[in-house]
């Protein structure tokens, strides 16, 4: 590859005498882009949280004015009392922001960008400029999505799943502009994700440092790689569907319009054919980070490294043939229902394998209970609940009753909050020193963790019981129904816990910002980890590595008998270690 080495070398040279703008705003450095995504998606996360407690208020205290809700315009909440139409927008946008503008960019946009080159020992992404674009496309998409709130008629109100025909025709939602903006923003964000995924896949395949064979890759990188494949192949389906829906709204096409031969179920099939892989896009990277962090803090190799990889491959594969379980009650051909039930139940197997391997990793370890570890273990504990509650819905007859109830709401939040978000708290705290050269305050970190863990469970656990009681999701006022009256107390309790949960997150924001400026200075390798990223200064210079790192072993050699210390970096050469030659990577082809 001599030819392409050249342009990089001088591109490299230029970077150092760059203006502030090229260095921090329109930067092509994967680390800066990762941090840009981090700030953007934390804002998204905060917006999503605000939306959540606003709509929770209406459920906890139906018809009562939100304290301070007077600031909201008449069209949303006259006198601070939410209007049904605004409630539907809140539900829709909470889902949209959390999925597309918080969790997904946090997992893939932030850590995909930041970790991949560092952990495989590359100077940057394969296509740095494309990488810059993937951020500068995501930003307008976010702004566009936020702008929807200020449109006449309010923001999209057909749910984050935008089921047609409700979403296709303004007269049915009462929303015209918002629904279109929603689709445009999603389509634009899709481009950003696809560019990102193209970049990640190329980088992992082509830019691994000498000796970094496939089976020496950290599980976090495996997870991000498989996730990128899912993003690459699933997002275009959504883009295509979004475009069709957009045309239905604007130029009068009839894709999903039953009155003129269209098929409402076609939207659901396309959406969920994207949507289920999306679910794994939102959990696989979390699994990867947690594997790294648990192994590191148990000072013990990951239990069953290979079966972890095969489990992730299985999850990725199964992810393409289970989408129908979102549609069991949709009027889909019941025969299909049975097929999808079987494939769905099978997912329990790889999930169980991973869970038991995480426990196996902790077994007979030497466990350090620092903040990343606490959050990582919480991930395992909570993900298990989310996984098990999934079995109820996979069993089709039981699903008849709990489908579209709060049981599913509890399930998705145990996976996405209890799962992904705890993993993100773990990952952010774990890699913060590498990103900013300073440690996050572990005292605040621990308080934040325990309070979050408590309020999180107080918020979402009772939702299972609401679901068992038959409480439908996305309803503005449960007191309309007699059979829901007895559940009102629980709703109020959940709302209060949710408010406390969001308040607790201020601790994290505080910790994040304060540590940035006056956190304790971090050494190159504060966690005594084996990863390649810890061999370079914190934060790493442009180009990441002074010299090309050479990898001699897997990433999880903790407590190896070969050395005194309880860790053995991938790049440390012991006598008897082979210099990697072409032969070593033969297996790759």
């Amino acid at each position, binding site marked *: 590859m001599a*030819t392409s080495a050249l342009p990089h070398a001088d591109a490299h040279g230029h970077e150092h005498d760059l203006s502030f703008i090229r260095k921090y705003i329109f930067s092509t450095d994967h680390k800066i882009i990762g941090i840009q995504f981090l700030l953007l998606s934390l804002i998204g996360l905060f917006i999503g949280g605000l939306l959540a407690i606003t709509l929770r208020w209406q459920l906890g205290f139906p018809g009562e004015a939100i304290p301070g809700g007077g600031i909201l315009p008449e069209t949303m909440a006259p006198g601070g009392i939410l209007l049904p139409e605004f409630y539907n927008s809140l539900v829709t946008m909470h889902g949209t922001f959390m999925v597309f503008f918080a969790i997904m960019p946090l997992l893939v946009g932030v850590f995909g960008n930041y970790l991949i080159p560092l952990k495989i020992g590359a100077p940057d992404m394969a296509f740095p400029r494309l990488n810059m674009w993937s951020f500068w496309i995501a930003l307008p998409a976010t702004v566009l999505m936020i702008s929807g709130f200020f449109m006449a008629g309010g923001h999209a109100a057909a749910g984050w799943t935008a089921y047609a025909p409700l979403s296709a025709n303004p007269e049915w939602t009462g929303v015209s502009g918002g629904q279109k903006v929603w689709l445009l923003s999603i389509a634009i964000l899709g481009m950003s994700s696809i560019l990102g995924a193209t970049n990640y896949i190329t980088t992992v395949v082509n830019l691994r440092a000498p000796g970094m064979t496939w089976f020496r890759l950290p599980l976090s990188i495996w997870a991000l790689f498989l996730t990128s494949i899912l993003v690459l*192949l699933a997002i275009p*389906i959504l883009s295509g569907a979004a475009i069709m829906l957009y045309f239905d709204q604007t130029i009068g096409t009839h894709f999903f319009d039953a009155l003129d031969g269209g098929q409402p*179920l*076609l939207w659901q*099939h*396309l959406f969920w*054919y994207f949507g289920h892989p999306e679910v794994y896009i939102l959990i696989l990277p979390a699994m990867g980070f947690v594997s790294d962090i648990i192994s590191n803090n148990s000072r013990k190799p990951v239990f069953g490294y290979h079966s972890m990889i095969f489990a992730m491959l299985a999850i990725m594969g199964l992810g*393409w*043939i289970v989408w*129908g379980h979102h549609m069991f009650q949709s009027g*889909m*051909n019941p*025969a*299909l229902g049975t097929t999808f039930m079987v494939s769905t139940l099978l997912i329990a197997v790889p999930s169980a394998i991973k869970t038991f391997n995480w426990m196996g990793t902790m077994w007979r370890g030497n466990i350090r209970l620092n903040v990343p570890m606490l959050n990582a273990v919480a991930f395992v504990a909570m993900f298990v609940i989310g996984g098990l509650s999934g079995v109820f819905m996979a069993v089709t007859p039981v699903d008849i009753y709990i489908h579209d109830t709060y049981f599913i709401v509890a399930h998705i939040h145990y996976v996405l909050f209890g799962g992904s978000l705890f993993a993100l708290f773990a990952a952010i705290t774990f890699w913060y020193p590498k990103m900013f050269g300073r440690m996050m305050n572990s005292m605040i970190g621990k308080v934040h963790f325990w309070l979050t863990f408590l309020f999180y469970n107080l918020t979402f656990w009772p939702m299972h019981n609401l679901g068992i009681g038959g409480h439908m999701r996305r309803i503005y006022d449960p007191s309309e129904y007699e059979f829901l009256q007895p559940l009102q107390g629980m709703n109020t309790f959940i709302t209060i816990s949710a408010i406390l949960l969001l308040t607790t997150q201020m601790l994290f924001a505080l910790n994040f910002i304060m540590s940035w400026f006056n956190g304790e200075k971090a050494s190159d390798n504060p966690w005594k980890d084996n990863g390649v990223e810890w061999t370079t200064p914190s934060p790493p210079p442009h180009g990441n590595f002074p010299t090309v790192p050479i990898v001699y072993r897997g990433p999880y050699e903790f407590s190896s008998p070969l050395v005194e210390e309880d860790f053995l970096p991938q790049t440390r050469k012991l006598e008897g270690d082979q210099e990697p030659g072409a032969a070593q990577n033969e297996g790759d*082809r």
Partner: protein
Amino acid sequence: MTEGAHKTHPNYWAIWGWLLGLTVAEVFVAQTALPRQLLVLLLLAMAVWKALLVALYFMHLRFEGNRMRIFAIAPLPLTVIVVVAVLMEFV
């Protein structure tokens, strides 16, 4: 880009001839009064044939390593899965 100085190229004009011939054949077959199923089958076969010619020679998959071939065909099962599954709704 590591090809040797003067590598021998496949005869691209021949491929062009094939593609042209198949297109003409397709248009012709479409006009005939064959039973629908047979017609559809024939047309699809010819379309796939043309597509393969383009992929193998113009996109020179025929001269690539296995890894590239895998990359190229990886998405195809997914395209089939979704269409077939959704068609189940209407049979």
